[in-house]
């Protein structure tokens, strides 16, 4: 059954899956008890000639028990969930040393920007967006000179916190990597941070998981989780390619 969840490839994945299976056990027990109860009662108390139903309007103790047990369970579940939630999504949850990457979504592609050697993103403005400048880099900003922009591929180093800055040009998209168990809507007019630590090198998929129009189903990109050495080599190669390219 655990095979139904995709492979785990981020530090969040084992924690989320653990929570998932914990809830599965709680709800599974409830489910089995209720369904057995229904079948059992249906059989045991089936109508027969001469049978008299037990006349009762209820039982206060029973009501208290089956109010209290779900209430306590839910409170505990809420407390545990909230701890994880704050860790994954909390406004101050992003580790200070997280490696920054900008991810810009538009119908129906993902544009990924790296800071380059200076460690700073160049300014981007909506007005600068054009066919040749898909993310809207403002080239008057010197910090933009070494920025590296790639389409539909996200390269991240393994074992290191990464923070993606998500922005959208047109409609709502959703940044979703199943193996990371990470999902965050990408909303026009907002820049939203999502961090994660990829744990297993390999190639995964980014799928857009919020209906974004005609091409929604094929708004897909690759995630390459690489060792630091491979990642650095790829980055170097991109930097050289960018140098050779004419600046617009």
């Amino acid at each position: 059954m655990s095979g139904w969840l995709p492979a785990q490839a981020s530090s969040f994945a084992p924690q989320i899956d653990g929570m998932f299976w914990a809830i599965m056990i709680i709800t599974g027990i409830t489910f089995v008890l209720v369904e057995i109860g229904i079948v059992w009662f249906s059989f045991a108390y089936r109508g027969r000639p001469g049978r008299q139903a037990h006349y009762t309007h209820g039982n206060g103790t029973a009501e208290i028990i089956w109010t209290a047990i779900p209430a306590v369970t839910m409170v505990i579940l809420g407390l545990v969930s909230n701890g994880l939630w704050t860790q994954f999504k909390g406004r101050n949850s992003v580790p200070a040393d997280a490696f920054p990457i900008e991810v810009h979504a538009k119908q129906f592609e993902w544009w990924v920007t790296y800071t380059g050697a200076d460690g700073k993103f160049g300014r981007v403005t909506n007005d600068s967006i054009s066919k040749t400048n898909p993310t809207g880099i403002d080239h008057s900003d010197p910090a933009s000179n070494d920025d590296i922009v790639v389409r539909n591929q996200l390269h991240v180093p393994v074992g290191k916190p990464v923070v993606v800055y998500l922005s959208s040009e047109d409609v709502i998209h959703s940044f979703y990597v199943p193996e990371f168990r990470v999902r965050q809507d990408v909303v026009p007019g907002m820049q939203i941070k999502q961090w994660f630590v990829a744990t297993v090198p390999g190639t995964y998929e980014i799928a857009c998981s919020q209906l974004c129009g005609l091409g929604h189903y094929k708004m897909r990109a690759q995630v390459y989780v690489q060792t630091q050495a491979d990642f650095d080599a790829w980055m170097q190669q991109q930097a050289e390619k960018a140098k050779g390219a004419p600046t617009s």
Partner: protein
Amino acid sequence: MSTAAATAHAGHAHHDDRSFVQKYLFSTDHKIIGIQFLFLSLFFLLIGAILSLQIRWQLAFPGQPMPGGKLLPESMAAGGVLLPEYYLQLVTMHGTFMVFFAIMLLLVGVYANFLIPLKIGAHDMAFPRINMASFWSAVVAGLVMLSSLFVTDGSPRAGWTMYVPLSARHDYSGASLGQELWSISIIFFGLSSVLGSLNYITTVINNRAPGMTWFRMPLSVWALFITAILGLLAVPVLAGAAIMLLFEQILGTHFFDPSAGGQVLLWQHLFWFFGHPEVYILILPAMGMVSELVANGSRKPIFGYHSMVFAICGIAFLGWIVWGHHMFVSGMNPTLGSSFMVTTLLIAVPSAIKVFNWMGTMWRGNLRFHTPMLWGIGFVAMFTIGGLSGIFMAATPVDMYIHDTYFIVAHIHYVLVGGSLFAIFGGIVFWYPKMFGRMMNETAGKVHFWLTLILYNCVFFPMHIIGMAGHMRRIYDPTIYDFLKPVQHWNVFISISAFLLFGTQIIFFLNFWLSMFWGKKAALNPWEDNGLEWSLPSPAPHGNWDTPPTVYRGPYEFSVPGASEDYIPQNKKLPTDREPALAPAHGD
């Protein structure tokens, strides 16, 4: 019996000089309006189901020509192969028709209209003409929505939730008039719903028969009353949001446009502020009806009547403060997510209370497995699954993964089909004799129940599995994703089950229409129930009672020790009963 016969006689003696149009078309009789809503909503249920079959074809066999697909215009299906733009219209219109025009009208339009006056002993609704206006606004809304399927650039395609900016900007969605028709239809729908809700609330407060105190009201009436309050307060928010959306679409306003200072998330807050109470609008009346069916079938008083009432109120109250759970990953402040998680988890408590009380009602009963009882038990068994799967989504970290996957689709269908629709089927069979004076066929009803129960689970249970695998909603072609390849065979299984499930509904369709003419004539009280409606002849005459009935007891006095029969109708006067001290105000 003699009083009932006298009422029947009086009903026939009462000369009905209304013309055919007044009687059956522009009727102010709540029962006729209820039946009109029934025909209207069953029509939309059929439309919604046909749309879903096309969705299922595409997901199981992407790129293959659909049987009968050549009948569709080239703009929808090229050479019988569904196009992505048509696919998005299908998912949008399936959701829209099912939520607004099938399930909501079936529960609130049909049962609130038909049952409230009959069950509380009133002559009619408090405002019969407003009631008629409510029905005809719903017809207009439905026709406008339906017409969007036939405009040149196609029907709406931004999902039934109509998230902006996709729904607001024609260049983003590719549809213009279709999108606008959605907004216009929803405005009419809102009008219909508000008129109806006002009426239900007023009627329940003012028009109860003498002796029908609040805590002698059947749970179905309680549920419909609380639902009407939810509808009155929630649906105007949707209509208001639809007006804003329409302005955005045709006047170029910027409520939701961030480049001009608007807010994208504003739409989601407005939509779900309506949308979550809406979920309870779609389930509370079903819970109320199931309470009637299970008590009747168990021949026992409902277990914990007061807890059931308070659970309805608790669900309705919490329903107002959980809307943010649709927005955990929307970019809303995560701290707000935490508070919405708490309220959402808490709503499991009154839901659990209801399930346990239904089981308590069956416990040590004397169960009669008539078709309505089967649907009632089916509801409890299936709603449990839908309720429990909601806990996964309420837990925010898990929701981050399963949000917008088929796990959610499974959840909503367990609540709305296994929950609401099962109760609706049970309710139709139970009150069919009251509506049409004849019984539906029990054997056909039971075959329909069992086949539906099995196939329904074959359709929707595997959706949990593909949701766990990460299968996104609303994607035209799942086969292009590597991570979904291992579960594609489930899509085929689900689709074939769905086609069979649809085929099974032919049994219901035939039973429903044929019984109207050839069904067994209904006895006065065919289910041996306690409700006031069964003291009237079937179908009941216009105006219901000549003199309002007097109520002596609660609605679930089954199997009272020492009684001659195992049921005592609410208006049956026993020697020990005293006349109600103070009759509630009875405005006519």
